[in-house]
């Protein structure tokens, strides 16, 4: 499977953190499995026209966390010790974005019902985009 990242340089979240968080989520969600290879530093940097050092920084952090391992001749792979996270762990990874969205819904004066309806619509749209 081709591993894809979505990088938003103008997001105030630094690019290396965007990569770290996406890898973390995809491992927890079972999208990335044990032993699966990640794109090389150079390939990922070239694809998004970003600094290779930023990609190295992200991979090194993930290696320190034990989520990735450096394998001879293969580059970075998902560590064999990782497992798809339990439901609780995966929910914890989603919580911060929803917390931020909840805060914005409050600032915009949107009711819980409207906000939930909108989230549901977003879920459906993502699902449609991934299953053409």
């Amino acid at each position, binding site marked *: 499977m081709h591993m894809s990242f979505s990088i938003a*340089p*103008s*997001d*105030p*979240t*630094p*690019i*290396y*953190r965007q990569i770290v968080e996406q890898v973390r989520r995809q491992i927890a969600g079972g999208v990335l499995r044990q032993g699966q290879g990640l794109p090389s530093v150079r390939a990922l*940097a*070239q694809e*998004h*026209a*970003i*600094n*290779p*050092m*930023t990609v190295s*920084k992200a991979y090194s952090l993930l290696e320190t966390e034990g989520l990735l391992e450096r394998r001879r001749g293969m580059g970075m792979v998902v560590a064999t010790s990782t497992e798809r996270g339990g439901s609780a762990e995966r929910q914890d990874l989603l919580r911060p974005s929803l917390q931020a969205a909840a805060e914005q819904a409050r600032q915009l004066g949107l009711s819980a019902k409207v906000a939930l309806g909108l989230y549901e619509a977003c879920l459906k749209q993502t699902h449609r985009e991934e299953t053409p």
Partner: protein
Amino acid sequence: MNDAIISANHVRHLYKSKAVLEQVNLQVPEGAVLGLVGRNGAGKSTLLRCLVGLTVPDKGFCQLGGCMSTDLSDEMRERLGYVAQTPDLFDWLTAEQHFERIGSLYAQWNQEQAWVLATQLSLPMFTKAKDLSLGDQQKLSVVLALGHDPDVLILDEPVASLDPMTRRAFMRALFENHDSERARTVVISSHLLSDLERVVTHVAFMREGQIQLMDEWDALAEHLRLVQVNTDEAPRGAIFKSRRPEQGLWLVDTRLAGAPAGGRALNLDDLFLELNA
């Protein structure tokens, strides 16, 4: 921090008896990609010209790779690439003829690589420079600056007239250095802040001839916050008073002791606006 490979030391420079650079200190570590940003007239071009030795500052000095910028060794010249704000080309020569002419000046000139880059940037090779569009003239200047695989690259708004596709190709080329022993060090001034966000390791903000703020970009993005307070007083950790106090909005460095938590994170565009408000 590694030893600085590019530095400005107490640089002061006057133009028509007005200070365009005032007490500028800059240390760029090897391998860094420094984005130099600031409004028009902030002194960016003059500083870059001082770094490469084209302008001799009235006070202070600049150094490249341990050499005084005003007295660069041949070895350092061979390692340096520079793109001026206004393309500096031979009007009557085509890109191909520029390759021959400039290439002969550099021992490390890589003709094949220059052609590859020219193709990636869609540079017309057989048109005289004077008949090229401004965008194509910029492309040619960039290819000429990169053709000898320099490990110090100083770029003064190199891509202002290029389309987004070509700018991506240019950003990729910045990291294509073949002498992988040495990480290339780059200083680039640009108003295209969303481009800079992709490639910089460090950012230096200039205002009115001075460096207002310089740090690693990741650190600034992670630690600077725009905080709203209900008093007229500056909160602890506030840096720069760019807005009127009654607005109660402050740029805060959350690494400083006692700084309030929360606040809004800023991208490079936001931070530029705050620092120049």
